[in-house]
């Protein structure tokens, strides 16, 4: 008999704006191919109209979807989102309302296990468990500590300024993890953090690394015409792709760009993404005198994302605290050499990547310059990276999740 999973998750591509939606999609799809049936519940402001979720899953009969009318959305986690006067709703109130709706759905539906992705849905998972007594898995894709990471300069580890942590969010995360029968962390990096900062026993936490496959890899063809022109003019292109926010280290990217430019003036640095640090990072580039070398494309989604990767000579993820770092796998899958910060989950998974501490500007610049200079280095990273990414599949992630589910429902 099929295991029936009640899953509280998040929007999928192309409507997502980050790795969480991609991870939900890739994992859920792979779980159903291993024989699970999933009732996928997610929040959505219904005034937008079309029930697109049914479209997304039209080809997978094992997934049914239910939408809870709610303004809660993934990545709505900056403190300012919680201020009703700015966004027209009180986030915490909505999270509680969402949790209540989760309880009601749980009472109406038949399932064997409850599964919740990240803190905004933990409450719904916990309520569903209280109402039905079914086992609960919470899957941690990021914690409040990652989101509020404050880099400690020249320190070997990411430092956390506890004052910047939103206590309410922290408490919701902690309650979810405590109530869960098993906590799934996207990396050992995240597992260690959960043990250290949330006091969850290590034996309750399992590491399931994210993956990539054709269903979530960006598709498209060629590079953006404008970027292609620049490349024809002899420019090399170094890509940052992610939210422009403290956690992702865009300021370190720009400082590194400065260091690289001193040695090689035919390199362009592209930041693809949007976020609360956009103007700050633009100012920094201006102050460092490299505004002409740093391009901002804004958020890119869909096939444009593929075009950014296709144009890149090197992908850089300088995150200060990165639970996983799915964009790195996307880049590798497309044959782009990657440089990732050691303060990331992905750096513990991949070997065919360059690695550096996010704060080590000289080392990042050294590796960027070397990759652009030595064709055998970039071609080896590219070729071996593709092979490595091909082995890191959602299917193997789903197999681990599957065995955890069987353990809990046996």
């Amino acid at each position: 008999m099929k295991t029936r999973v009640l899953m509280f998750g998040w929007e999928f591509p192309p409507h997502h704006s980050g790795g969480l939606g991609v991870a939900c999609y890739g994992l859920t799809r792979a779980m159903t191919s291993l024989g699970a049936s999933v009732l996928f519940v997610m929040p959505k402001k219904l005034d937008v109209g079309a029930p697109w979720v049914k479209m997304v899953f039209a080809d997978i009969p094992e997934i049914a979807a239910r939408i809870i009318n709610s303004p809660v959305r993934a990545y709505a986690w900056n403190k300012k989102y919680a201020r009703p006067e700015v966004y027209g709703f009180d986030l915490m109130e909505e999270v509680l309302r969402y949790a209540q709706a989760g309880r009601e759905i749980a009472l109406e539906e038949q399932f064997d296990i409850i599964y919740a992705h990240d803190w905004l849905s933990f409450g719904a998972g916990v309520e569903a468990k209280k109402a039905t007594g079914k086992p609960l898995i919470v899957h941690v894709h990021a914690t409040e500590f990652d989101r509020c990471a404050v880099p400690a300069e020249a320190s070997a580890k990411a430092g956390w300024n506890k004052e910047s942590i939103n206590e309410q969010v922290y408490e919701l995360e902690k309650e979810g993890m405590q109530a869960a029968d098993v906590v799934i962390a996207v990396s050992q990096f995240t597992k260690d953090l959960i043990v250290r900062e949330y006091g969850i026993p290590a034996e309750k936490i399992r590491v399931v690394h994210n993956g990539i496959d054709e269903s979530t890899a960006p598709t498209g063809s060629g590079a953006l015409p404008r970027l292609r022109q620049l490349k024809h003019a002899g420019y090399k292109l170094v890509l940052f792709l992610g939210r422009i926010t403290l956690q992702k280290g865009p300021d370190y990217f720009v400082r590194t760009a400065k260091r690289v430019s001193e040695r090689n003036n035919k390199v362009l640095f592209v930041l693809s993404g949007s976020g609360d640090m956009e103007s700050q990072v633009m100012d920094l580039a201006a102050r460092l005198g490299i505004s002409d070398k740093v391009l901002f494309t804004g958020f890119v989604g869909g096939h444009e994302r593929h075009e950014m990767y296709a144009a890149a000579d090197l992908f850089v993820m300088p995150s200060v605290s990165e639970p996983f770092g799915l964009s790195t796998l996307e880049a590798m899958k497309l044959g782009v050499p990657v440089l990732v910060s050691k303060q990331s989950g992905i750096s513990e998974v991949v070997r065919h990547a360059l690695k550096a501490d996010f704060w080590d500007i000289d080392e990042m610049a050294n590796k960027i310059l070397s990759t652009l200079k030595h064709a055998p280095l970039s071609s080896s990273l590219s070729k071996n990276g593709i092979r490595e990414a091909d082995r890191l599949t959602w299917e193997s992630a789903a197999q681990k999740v599957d065995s955890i589910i069987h353990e809990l429902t046996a």
Partner: protein
Amino acid sequence: MKSVCFYFQVHQPYRVKRYRVFDIGNDPEYFNDRSDTDLNNRRIIEKVARKSYVPTTQLLLDLLKKHHEMRVSFSFSGVVLEQLERYAPDALALFKAVLDTGQAEVLGETYYHSLAFFYSLPEFERQVSHHRSLIQRLFGYWPRVFRNTELSYRNDLGSWAERAGYDGILAEGWDPILGWKSPNYVYQPAGASKIKLLLKNYKLSDDVAFRFSSRDWSEWPLTAEKFGAWLSATEGDTVNLFMDYETFGEHQWEATGIFSFLEHLPEEVFKNPELKFRTPSEVIRAHDHKGEIDMPHIVTWADTDRDLTAWVGNPMQEAAIKAIYDLEEPVLLANDHKIMDDWRKLQTSDHFYYMCTKWFADGDVHAYFSPYESPYDAYIAYMNALSDLRLRLEKRNL
């Protein structure tokens, strides 16, 4: 009587420090890492001397004095001897004492433990003669038997060694090459008339070097008594046991019982009157050759491929080794001792081995021994140092 022939390889490279793009043109020192990582050459040589060279050589010295019938042989790279002279003179003194017993032989090789034979014959010959001078100076000894870096061998190397006047040369006894022939006889290189070829018995050698402490191995634990019995049971004229000297105390830690194994091995060999310790030169004199061995392609003692792919098997390695030998002409033109020495230290085979990606793939990192975090880091440091060397040459040759 059947020979038991031990040859130990003693070598430590000068590892390139984490040399960054920004160091190019500013820092002509490539090998002077002072961190507490494995890039610190002094730290490594002191550690290896303490854990392996000193205790093993002291033990061998005691055994040689106790058993006048015992024999061993060594091949030292020039770069390890330099480092021992500077940082571990006690180890070097012990090696000299072992040589002074007259029961040990030193083999010839390249000073810089390089693959020069396959890239530049003149440079190879300079390094061999440079090495000979050093062996003369330190041990008062003129090598009669040659072995090339990583036990790499090809027919033309055999011919070269004959022309150079050696009595013998060593190579890997690899089954796919030997076919029905056994490594346990003395042979001749293809086309040679005088020089003889000794082949490594890799099964028995690796029982000690690799499998000794492996609990998954059905023969574990390996005792001196058991190994002595295997030597007795081996058919042929000679059993050639070739291995890295660091096997004792470094690859196989003291706690595995490796020293006690070595200590008791001689008496097990002496139990069988048909067995006799011999050095390579003595083996060559004691046994007639049993025909020619044809090795038209390079054979080494490395991993399961027994070729050079661990050193020059990927595009980074190929680019790096080509780049270093491309500098031969300007380096000779510069005629600057320090530049020449740095150029040659960069030829040491280990640098290319650290760039190997073949075990780095497919989830098997166990076989990857490297002081760098990845093959890519090794390549970056190496190519940056090489860029600096090129700048120094340009300045010098203006």
